């Protein structure tokens, strides 16, 4: 790097508005990745299934909101006088319930019969599930993106140097709430049963824990988190046009976050999601312009994978993962 370049970097980094804007972007992206990663890891821990249909579930969740809120007008049609944000929130809740039921059904139908099979064989089944769910969802979506009918639109407010979209505020509140609920859940009867099952399935069954119920619950949680991520992917400032056939692929960008955090750590997934989100946001604000032309235009999108490779070289089982997981 030439001294000139360092000066440029220093100047850019010292522009408060640019930095603050990057933070907002990082929170937005990192929150989405964290929602995806945490759900993926909860399913993996509880059921030993690598769910490659996670992105499809995210897109399906967003589609359900779009169709409830804009096509079917549920629950809006039953509460005609309610303000728009109330019926939209209602639509989101119904979509999340539907996502949970779909997650549980998928597990019951496709994965329960695979209990005890090789990790690899089960992962192949989820790849099949991904194709099924993604194609059905994309069929329903059709060729045009479907807006989610949210009340936020592209509205923002200014806070000092930064412009903050209302969607990002909402997303952050929702994500924090989700994390708090999950932390609380892990201390409940079912949560303790889930942790026990994750650690030693046979010993859990020996205690009378219904492992089937644990599986269902973990898929319900994973699917709801995926749906939440799918919703925020389909809102401003990510994709204000709504959910479209590429939404499912967006979720694949959370895989580096999962690997960085360690495949079997929920906390790791959370941290990994934020790290990747911020790295990507940082790269897209700072590693652009004429000085960085040599990196090409899509460099920010590669950053998560670079980060993943670096972490894997230093700690092959991720930042928070346990060593045995390398068998995977």
């Amino acid at each position, binding site marked *: 790097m030439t001294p000139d370049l360092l000066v440029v970097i220093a100047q850019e980094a010292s522009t408060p508005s640019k930095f603050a804007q990057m933070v907002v972007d990082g929170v937005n992206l990192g929150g989405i990745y964290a929602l995806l990663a945490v759900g993926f890891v909860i399913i993996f821990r509880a059921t030993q299934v690598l769910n490659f249909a996670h992105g499809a579930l995210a897109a399906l969740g967003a589609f359900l909101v779009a169709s409830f809120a804009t096509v079917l007008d549920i629950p809006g049609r039953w509460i005609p006088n309610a303000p728009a944000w109330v019926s939209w929130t209602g639509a989101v809740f119904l979509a999340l319930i539907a996502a949970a039921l779909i997650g549980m059904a998928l597990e019951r139908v496709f994965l329960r019969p695979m209990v*005890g099979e090789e990790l690899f064989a089960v992962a192949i089944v989820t790849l099949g599930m991904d194709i099924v769910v993604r194609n059905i969802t994309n069929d329903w979506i059709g060729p045009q993106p479907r807006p989610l009918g949210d009340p936020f639109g592209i509205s923002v407010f200014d806070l000092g140097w930064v412009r903050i979209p209302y969607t990002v505020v909402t997303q952050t509140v929702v994500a924090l709430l989700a994390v708090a609920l999950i932390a609380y859940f892990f201390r409940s*009867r079912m949560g*303790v*049963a889930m*942790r*026990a099952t994750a*650690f*030693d*399935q*046979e*010993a*859990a*069954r*020996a*205690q*009378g*824990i*219904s492992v089937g119920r644990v599986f269902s619950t973990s898929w319900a949680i994973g699917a709801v988190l995926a749906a939440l991520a799918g919703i925020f992917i389909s809102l401003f400032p990510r994709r204000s046009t709504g959910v479209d056939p590429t939404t499912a692929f967006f979720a694949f960008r959370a895989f580096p976050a999962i690997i960085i955090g360690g495949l079997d750590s929920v906390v790791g997934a959370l941290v990994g999601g934020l790290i990747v989100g911020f790295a990507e946001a940082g790269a897209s604000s700072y590693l652009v312009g004429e000085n960085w032309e040599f990196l090409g235009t899509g460099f920010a999108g590669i950053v998560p994978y670079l980060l993943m490779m670096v972490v894997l070289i230093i700690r092959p089982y991720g930042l928070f993962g346990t060593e045995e997981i390398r068998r995977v």
Partner: protein
Amino acid sequence: MLTVENLEVVYNDVVLVLRGISLEVGDGQIVALLGANGAGKTTTLRSITGLLDVHEGDITKGEITFKGDEITEALPSKIVEMGISQVMEGRRIFAEMTVDDNLRAGAYVNSNRAGYKASYDRVMGLFPRLKERRSATAGYLSGGEQQMLAIGRALMQDPKLMILDEPSLGLAPLLVQEVRDIIVQINEQGTAVLLIEQNANMALSIAHHGYIMETGKMVMDGDPQKLLKDDDVKEFYLGLHASGEKKSFRDVKHYKRRKRWLS
């Protein structure tokens, strides 16, 4: 209370490991089930508690009943709910979780407030050491404490029958005594016990009845005192597992004979 009749179990559709065994545990009894490594003791436990499936095992013949109800092939959760709890071989505690959370996991089927509280108090009364280490991560407990935790976890289910699979395995002689005393206490509190052991001395010293298994068959059963005096039992079990004894030429010979006897 528990009857196992003519039980035959096959692993992987081919390996016949239980060849028609029968046993019985009466109300309030401690029954010892003895046998060398590989005799089929753990398989018997798995059959009773519905855990053969993960090991690709199947009951091909026979019947298991508990308090008159047939439980052959019942789900493990159902069996625990009916009142049979187990302490697995090798403890199998949830090492990443705290002592308290291990007990809560144990209480999955007994989670109403009153039932939980009663069981928890019982466990804390029996194991003051666990009480001190309530919020410690279970994996950091000593071997003896882990065995206590495994027993406590099973007690959280408020069992009517408790099956312990080699609880003395890997414990120092003093701790073996402690485990033995705990089993006696648990039994005195009204829980029947099926005690699976290789340590015949320990098990027969507290049992009301003893069974001896050999390669998937019951070869002997009866009064523990009589079994203790039996020459074959002495030879095959007591010599090998009496604690503190130095290995003599006789023991080595024993070992060889035992191997032949096993094959």
